[in-house]
């Protein structure tokens, strides 16, 4: 199963329609859409770290997410351009570009998380900073949350002058880590707008105070309007000008790229071991149980016997034939534990 998490409905709409996902009406806390041959579960979390983490925790617990599953966070983000980068390095051309995030820095703590970059893709890669507040468009400043961002983020900007900023990715990673390993989580972001950093040098004591206007801070958690993308701004860094249609448009424009990646993950997921027992494994387990019973195995003998059978199956040793001969010879089943121990040693010898 691929667990998709989007902060807002406009970020999810194109994916829902592409895969023909159906709303799961039984789920009341978060809007959930399922389908894609039963392999996709898309949740609209609402904006912000708390909402995103709560959704991941709730949905993954309910669906027993784990080995064989993947988590994918898809959404829009801002590109924060270093001073002068916007003009000189073409940062203005970023809106609509999709990025796979290779490091996620939580602004509040300065902690950075690294999803494994396992799968092939055609996106550009970039680090993303997850903040709790919205970067104000008119002031073009930092939110206070960026105090904790390690220098690395700024160093990483040096090559082409920008980094990405959202309000969920690092939280989704941390909540997802209760269910998934770093190889099972991916973070795909499409730039909705570019904000330029102000040009003042960073003082020795840290980043300058931010200029975040109160009305742009998400203070009310996930309102129904926010989920539908109707409250402005839709992007944490975007100020109030971006509306539902713009987010939907960039997601629709990118849907082919996004779904190609989702399909690749889906194929990889199918190929991986889901942990479900095959018919042969079930029949082998039944045979092993019978053998344990007939050998009057103790708990310790039982685990040793299982290890032998596991090895024989892998090494191509026909353990059923060896056991069948013991049954034919009348050495199995055993009458008591004493005989069981004797036959157990014989079986071990004959298997190897």
């Amino acid at each position, binding site marked *: 199963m691929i667990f998709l998490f989007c902060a807002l409905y406009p970020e999810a709409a194109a994916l829902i329609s592409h895969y023909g996902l159906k709303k799961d009406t039984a789920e009341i806390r978060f809007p959930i859409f399922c389908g894609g041959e039963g392999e996709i579960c898309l949740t609209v979390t609402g904006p912000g770290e708390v909402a995103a983490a709560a959704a991941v925790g709730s949905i993954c617990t309910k669906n027993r997410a784990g080995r064989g599953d993947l988590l994918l966070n898809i959404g829009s983000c801002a590109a924060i351009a270093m001073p002068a980068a916007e003009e000189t390095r073409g940062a203005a051309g970023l809106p609509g570009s999709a990025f796979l995030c*290779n490091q996620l820095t939580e602004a509040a703590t300065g902690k*950075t998380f690294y999803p494994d970059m*396992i799968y092939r893709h055609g996106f550009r890669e970039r680090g993303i900073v997850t903040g709790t507040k919205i970067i104000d468009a008119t002031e073009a400043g930092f939110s206070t949350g960026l105090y904790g961002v390690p220098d*690395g983020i700024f*160093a990483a900007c040096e090559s082409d002058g920008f980094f990405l900023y959202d309000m969920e990715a690092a939280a989704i990673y941390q909540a997802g*880590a209760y269910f998934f390993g770093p190889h099972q989580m991916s973070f795909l972001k499409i730039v909705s707008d570019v904000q330029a950093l102000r040009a003042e040098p960073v003082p020795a004591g840290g980043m300058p105070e931010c200029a975040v206007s109160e009305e742009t801070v998400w203070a009310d958690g996930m309102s129904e309007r926010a989920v539908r993308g109707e409250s402005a701004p839709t992007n944490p860094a975007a100020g109030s000008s971006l509306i539902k249609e713009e987010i939907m448009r960039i997601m629709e424009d990118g849907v082919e790229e996004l779904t190609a990646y989702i399909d690749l993950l889906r194929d990889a997921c199918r190929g991986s071991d889901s942990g479900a027992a095959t018919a042969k494994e079930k029949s082998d387990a039944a045979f092993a149980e019978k053998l344990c019973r007939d050998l009057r195995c103790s708990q310790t003998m039982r685990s040793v016997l299982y290890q032998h059978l596991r090895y024989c199956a892998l090494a191509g040793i026909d353990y059923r034939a060896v056991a069948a001969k013991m049954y034919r010879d009348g050495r199995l089943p055993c009458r008591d534990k004493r005989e069981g121990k004797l036959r157990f040693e014989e079986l071990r010898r004959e298997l*190897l």
Partner: protein
Amino acid sequence: MRNLDGNYYNPPFSHIYVERAAAEHPVTRRILTRFPRAEIITIEHYKDVFCRRGQDYVLQHGTQKLILAKKHGTLLYEGAPVCQSFGNENFYYTSCVMNCVYDCEYCYLKGMYPSGNLVIFVNLDDYFAEIERRLARHSMYLCVSYDTDLAAIEPIAGYVGAWVEFVRGQNAGRPGRLKIELRTKSADGRLWQSLAPEDGVICAFTLSPQAVIDACEHRTPSLAQRIGAAEAALAAGFPVRLCFDPMIYCKDWRSQYASMTEQVFSRIPADKLIDVSVGSFRISQEYLKKMRRCEPGSAVVQFPFRNEGGFYQYPPELMEEMERYLAERLAGHVARERIFRWKA
């Protein structure tokens, strides 16, 4: 989208994580020039990537990433009990690289490390400085290709050449002061021929029957190629050791190991070898537990080993039989006093 050609995974070293403190190191710069298309990710500390929770060693190893870092703290360790000292005193090992580009199913690194990614510590000079400090007190026998295969990554790291020159410098005028073992399955014979020989550098080639190589030493050179590399090292004038360790059990192990011995000594002049080692597979119980979890389909790690004092090994009778058998075959070529069998 590009690259979606049916192969799901990124190629090896598609991404290189570089510690900020190591970024400007000349070794880092040199290594990075070899991977102009790699995605470079700056990190604070290698453990931020290498020691994450819940990693899948096997999956990562199949699409291995490179981490360039500086090693701090302990740089030299005393020899572990599962390893042979070959009668040498002051036996140490060091890990200037963690993990390996080869993929042997039985490799203890899968049980030891949380990640399948390759870490190269770029501050090799700090290792050298630490060794010099110890050498001021006593001579040393040092295994340097321990938690990795240094020769296999020589085109990337260049550390074999650096070690050879370091040993030469330390032994100049004071022969025998520092002896190192470079253990490898690599078959790059040109490497040894490109280096001036040094008596203090033992080139130790791990050899296995071709059937064992095919079954569980993935991505490694064939037996014939490894023999060729050992020949090249001998011809170049290096001391050469052959390691028949770990011996791996299979139904027809006798014939496999017998024909391997014949193949080896049809090409290698036994009297030119400094010694040979024999040892069957053994591993600590914690490592095996983890390896069995991450390689459920590997016969070699799923073998029903016996636990002897916290170490898993083949049942004592089988272990004795396998090792004695091979040692006897080797004794047909190599003097007995130069055959080392591992003792617990």
